[in-house]
């Protein structure tokens, strides 16, 4: 493949125009001692059709969610992505552009981001959002960094928070000087605590007493951070209603494909009073010299390219395209659609949980706890072995949670799963566990 349009004649003409006799002349300032004196040890280039064959062959060695019925969750979910989402987000005027530094040429992306920010505020019941972060886990890190300082540097994390998000927080904490502390039940919020983090619904699908936890955070003067599921918010009370100061979530569920873990969408929302601590790009509305409404990147004095080593965050490139997809998806859903997705997740998950725990020796890991679109069970065999055996029967059975026990399986049921699929899944699980 070659995408440079130059002809040999043009290359000669251009070299002559710059007074060079050869291409190598352009690289003369590289000292000979560090110049690569051989060809790169990579295969030669191939034609597009050969490349497609290579990647088709690689892709065919994967089992996709088109082929395995997906009951896996744990932060990434097989929700339906309507055709309209990528028909629009895939328009190349959007996806071949970059950060809208020249607003007059970028009103398209800027306005979609303004609409995205608006919809995230509507969803979360909070006042401000931004133009996206990398994913849910990194959004949590950014939220925690908004809360630390002024003598408060401890971060209390609920035991129900996703382990990978905690790992990301632990990694970031090594640089920023905190160590996440896990709590179960009521947190003890002393005056050196910066943030209390609660995931609701939690990593096992369970609805947490978030209101009480956030009240405890506030009583101790700490920032209340909720990790939320955007698709739960048609049926569940919003982070704003629950008292969260900052809400972060994984936006993959909003019109983005599974993509084996990325690119996903880091969502963050907070209070207007904290907007100057919010990381990343923020789009604001203004007017042009003729008084027409338009959009620009605003409050840039917060950001790394202005504040440099005083900036609260280093984010530059973000996940704008995924935010764009989320905006289109949320417009497609509308408030009724959002509630319908939520009710379907809730109802199908309850149905699956009842059927699965009716199997011999399969018990709820949290008996009596209310859940949304995931539930945890204890199996009579190690979860990983069961997952492997279920692949042979055509299912992604769920996600193992070894930190909670080798026998714990977390099962996710989205609006896509039909009753027939759930019944077939439970039947297959019965066979696997009886084997």
């Amino acid at each position, binding site marked *: 493949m070659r995408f440079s349009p130059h002809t040999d004649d043009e290359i000669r003409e251009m070299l002559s125009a710059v007074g060079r006799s050869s291409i190598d002349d352009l690289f003369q300032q590289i000292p000979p001692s*560090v110049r690569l004196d051989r060809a790169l040890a990579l295969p030669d280039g191939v034609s597009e059709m050969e490349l497609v064959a290579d990647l088709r062959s690689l892709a065919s060695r994967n089992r996709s969610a088109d082929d395995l019925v997906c009951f896996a969750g744990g932060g990434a979910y097989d929700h339906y992505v309507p055709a309209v989402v990528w028909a629009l987000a895939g328009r190349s005027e959007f996806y071949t552009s970059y950060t809208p530094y020249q607003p007059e040429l970028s009103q398209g992306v800027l306005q979609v981001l303004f*609409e995205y920010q608006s919809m995230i505020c509507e969803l979360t019941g909070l006042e401000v959002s931004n133009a996206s972060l990398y994913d849910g886990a990194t959004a949590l890190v950014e939220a925690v960094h908004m809360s630390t300082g002024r003598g408060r540097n401890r971060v209390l994390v609920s035991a129900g928070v996703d382990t990978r998000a905690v790992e990301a927080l632990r990694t970031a904490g090594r640089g920023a000087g905190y160590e996440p502390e896990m709590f179960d039940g009521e947190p003890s919020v002393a005056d050196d605590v910066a943030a209390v983090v609660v995931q609701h619904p939690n990593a096992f699908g369970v609805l947490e007493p978030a209101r009480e936890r956030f009240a405890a955070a506030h009583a101790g003067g700490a920032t209340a951070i909720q990790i939320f599921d955007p698709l739960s918010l048609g049926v569940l009370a919003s982070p704003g209603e629950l008292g969260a100061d900052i809400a972060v979530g994984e936006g993959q569920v909003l019109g983005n494909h599974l993509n*084996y873990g990325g690119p996903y969408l880091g969502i963050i929302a907070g209070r207007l009073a904290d907007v100057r601590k919010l990381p990343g790009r923020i789009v604001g509305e203004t007017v042009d010299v003729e008084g*027409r409404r338009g959009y620009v990147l605003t409050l840039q004095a917060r950001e790394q390219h202005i504040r440099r080593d005083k900036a609260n965050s280093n984010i530059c490139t973000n996940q704008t395209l995924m935010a764009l997809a989320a905006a289109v998806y949320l417009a497609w859903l*509308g408030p009724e659609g959002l509630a319908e997705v939520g009710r379907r997740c809730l109802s199908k998950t309850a149905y699956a949980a009842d059927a699965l725990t009716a199997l011999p020796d399969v018990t709820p890991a949290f008996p009596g706890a209310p859940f949304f679109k995931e539930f945890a069970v204890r199996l009579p065999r190690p979860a990983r072995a069961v997952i492997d055996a279920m692949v042979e029967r055509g299912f992604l059975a769920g996600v193992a949670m070894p930190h909670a026990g080798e026998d714990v399986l977390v099962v996710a049921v989205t609006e896509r799963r039909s009753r027939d699929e759930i019944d077939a899944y439970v039947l297959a699980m019965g066979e696997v566990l009886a084997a």
Partner: protein
Amino acid sequence: MSGGAPIRTQGPVASTGTIADHSSSGRRASAFAPLDVPEVTVPESHRRTRAPGLPRVAEIDIVRHYTMLSQQNYGVDTGPYPLGSCTMKYNPKVAETVAAFPGFQRTHPLQPDATVQGTLEMLWRLEEALCEITAMARATLQPPAGACGEMTGLLIMRAFHADHGGPRTKVLIPDAAHGTNPASVRLAGFEAVNVPSDERGLVDVEALRGLVDDEVAGLMLTNPNTLGLFEERIEEITAVLHSAGALVYYDGANLNAIMGKARPGDMGFDIVHINTHKTFATPHGGGGPGAGPVGVAAHLVDYLPAPIVARDPDGSFRWDRDRPRSIGRLHGFNGNIGVLVRAYAYVFGHGGDGLTEVSELAALNANYLAGRLADAFPLAYPEAPPMHEFVSTAEPLKKETGIRAMDVAKRLIDLGYHPPTVYFPLVVDEAMMVEPTETESKQTLDAMADAFLQAAEEAHTDPGLLHEAPVSTPVRRLDEARAARHLRLRWGLEEEPDRRP
């Protein structure tokens, strides 16, 4: 000359309302299969009491609205995009095709390794290729962007020093560096210390020597540097750092200049991040996603984020999670895999020979365009020839006419082009940072040069054209001060109460 940048400025629905302004009670686009299980409701204490104010629109409303907005946006597919330091090259369409294969797009990040052997092998091959291009031993593909790659590299530095003589406090950065460098340094728990440039625009090596002591954990550097110039004394620079026990970090922002010509590892760099959305043409997405793989030299492999891909003796691939000295995880899953598929397509489609030619023609285009502009917009540092991009200055034009780089940029829009990066790097007055990339033809470069020169000419003859510009766009110059003073960061009930859903 054309009548402005090729974006939509009029038409039947080119109004500026938001999607919420199209909202009508009772209208909707989504539909679902009938509920086929008994309905369950949320316990009352957890229930949402008021529906969120999402728009109520039909699918045609959505399609017209977002299509109109896309037409008010300028991308590489629209026209040349010489935004310096961003490498806005053509994004091959085939990369989109292959990334959409269900085997890539519809796989779950937590499914068993045995069911994603194709992806793991793809990542393995890509990692090997990136290591060959940069002369590194191993790489992590986990960081989702360059800035996260910087954080990864700095935390590796931190962990390395903790194991070798104790923590260090400072990281050196050239004064022309991208803002993410100092921001990452502080977030990684270090103090950022500026290294001055000399009169040629290169690292002042004598000043560097004076700054290096046993508190310095490392140096972050691009090469070619932010001015587009190759650091000729790079071996001396890396040796100065190494002799003090410090590490040297290569910021891959400018890797597009040197593929197949020189390799960071051979220059003495210990850590390298790569911006796949720049060098390997993965689409910039209006601001992202990108990917920021980080390669390291052999002595740092143990510190890489976990997990990394491993190949077993039987030829199968798996995630190796058992890495006790790893700095940990920097992403919820394993990075922007969908972006990495596109990078793989670019790397293996081009091959070693093709990637080398990419860098050659990137340098040819930059030198050619710099030469065409030199009379009106001289190079800020003319002593060293530029590589894949160059920094010119509009300072002489400003002295003569009062016209600033920003005015030239806005006039270029009316002449049909996306402007270059302006006012960066900060060390150059009236900076115009131009990166034409290798995918623009001589004809395009000539036409673009004509537009730059026309703007410079008009600065003398008809400066109003530049002060007023742009006039051809859906909106003209926007009041950024007002945007920051009167914050309106979302649609709100207070301003249009009757149009809200």
